[in-house]
């Protein structure tokens, strides 16, 4: 793979009920990313936006943000899906030989619609849709299948929530920084067994943008490019009853491919920090396993070991993760942006000292049918 780098990132603060509309949110992060890269829009030659007609409440939702994203007069395109996927497309364009620098934007105002009803639209209208499943109830089916098979406890899941909300206190962009205990999580209202309120992520509005450039352009623009070492995505079967809900083969496949590109054979030794898409607390444990951080069914023990906490060998979600800010479609790109800040040593109070290689991860669809894994590094080789 030819080399490309991320040379600018911008995020809004994530919160519920933002007063800016889509375009105003996107303009904020594009401006921030340009300033971060020390660039002007004229230095950008193509644009990838990310929209979702359901969350945005309009079809061809990319129209609303065309000017704000800097699309006017530029080759532009639009992805519908998690921000890790649109970022991957941005990377492809950057490495295609046609462009030098790509800006990728994503935004979502989850608070404006009815998230449960909108997510229900992901179910097959010919079959399961009438059941009224949504993200929480479908994920609860997955959570129980996983926990039951491997004896993962609700307390172990709660530890993820405790860790990530605590980490969020160090992240000025986070929506829900919280000092909570396992007991607090266990005592929070039961939504869909075994998922309780504090096992879920908040309804957040926000936006994120990143700027990618070819090696030549990156060197010209910045002294601190963050190199993309590997990226891969993979999709599992559609129907829940046709998947192994207790283990994500799609994540394993994506991770192995990204690791291979990046030359990673031992994640513990070679990855310094990971930002993963923990839409629910149990997910982080499952993703540990799919990413090869531990064996099957060992996610619970791994969180208990403390090795993924701040100060551990491989801190996961220093930003507070998605449990602390969940702007759908943005959350994956936010993982990339956070990884970039870590590798530049600019992550403030959430900085993992000396981080040189980072992993960012995104998901898409029902019970994370699609996974996308990124490996980034501050080092050229």
């Amino acid at each position, binding site marked *: 793979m030819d080399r490309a780098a991320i040379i600018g990132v911008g995020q809004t603060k994530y919160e519920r009920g933002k*007063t800016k509309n889509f375009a105003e949110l996107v303009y904020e992060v594009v401006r921030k990313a340009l300033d971060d890269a020390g660039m002007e829009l004229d230095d950008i030659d193509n644009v990838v936006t990310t929209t979702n007609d359901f969350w945005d*409440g309009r079809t061809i939702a990319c129209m609303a943000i065309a000017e704000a994203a800097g699309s006017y007069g530029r080759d532009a395109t639009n992805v519908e899906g998690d921000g890790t996927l649109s970022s991957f497309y941005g990377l492809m364009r950057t490495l295609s030989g046609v462009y030098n620098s790509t800006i990728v934007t994503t935004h979502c105002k989850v608070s404006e619609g009815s998230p*449960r*009803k909108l997510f*229900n639209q992901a179910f097959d*209208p*010919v*079959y*399961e*849709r*009438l*059941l*009224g*499943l*949504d993200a*929480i*109830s479908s994920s*609860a*089916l*997955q*959570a*129980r*299948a996983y926990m*039951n098979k491997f004896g993962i406890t609700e307390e172990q899941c709660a530890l993820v929530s405790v860790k990530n909300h605590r980490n969020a206190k160090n992240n000025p962009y986070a929506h829900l920084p919280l000092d909570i205990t396992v007991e607090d999580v266990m005592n929070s*209202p*039961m*939504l*869909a*067994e*075994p*998922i309780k309120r504090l096992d879920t992520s908040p309804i957040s509005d926000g936006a994120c943008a990143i700027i990618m450039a070819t090696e030549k352009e990156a060197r010209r623009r910045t002294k601190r490019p963050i190199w993309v070492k590997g990226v891969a995505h993979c999709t599992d*079967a*559609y*129907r*829940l*009853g*046709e998947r192994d*809900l207790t283990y994500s083969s799609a994540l394993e496949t994506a991770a192995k491919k990204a690791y291979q590109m990046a030359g990673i054979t031992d994640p513990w030794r070679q990855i310094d920090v990971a930002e993963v898409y923990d839409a629910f607390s149990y997910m982080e444990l499952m993703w540990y396993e799919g990413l090869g951080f531990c064996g099957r069914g060992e996610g619970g023990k791994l969180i208990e070991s403390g090795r993924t906490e701040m100060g551990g060998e491989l801190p996961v979600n220093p930003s507070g993760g998605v449990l602390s800010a969940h702007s759908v479609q943005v959350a994956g790109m936010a993982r990339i942006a956070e990884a970039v800040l870590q590798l530049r040593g600019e992550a403030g109070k959430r900085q993992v000292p000396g981080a040189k290689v980072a992993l960012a991860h995104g998901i898409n669809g029902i019970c994370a049918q699609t996974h996308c894994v990124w490996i980034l590094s501050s080092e050229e080789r």
Partner: protein
Amino acid sequence: MDNETIFEVVERDGLLVHQGVIRVPYTWAAGEVASKFYMGLRDKKIYGIRCPHCDIVFVPPKKVCHRCFDNLTEWVEVSDEGTLETFTIVYYSEPELHPMKAPFAYGIIKLDGADTGITHLIGEANLNRLREGMRLKAVFRDEPQGNYLDIKCFKPIERANHG
């Protein structure tokens, strides 16, 4: 011209929020395969479809095997009884979505003769006694309408001589 389509306008700190709605009706073609499945439900029979190549019986049936990509034609009647693989009890209320009143349960049930799980509602059950591995049986809707809820739910099978 009183086609006012914004329901409610809220002013907060000099900014406005409009409450609007999208009401586009849809009619989805079930296609030949799902139509046959639903016609089976009218007769209180559950049909799956078998992939001879992968030796998988899919319930509900589908036209193409996602593993080998072959077209599937081998219809199989499966049992209306099966085993609960996973479930959740839903405590929150979402009246426009939920066909049952909370608390109620969803489950994934592997019917006898099928190799894939069918996701459905669990009803007529003591929710506290749901367990993975328990046996369930389909409850059919009295007047089928040609959709997924022609199976009303799955209910626990009472063991003949318990208690």
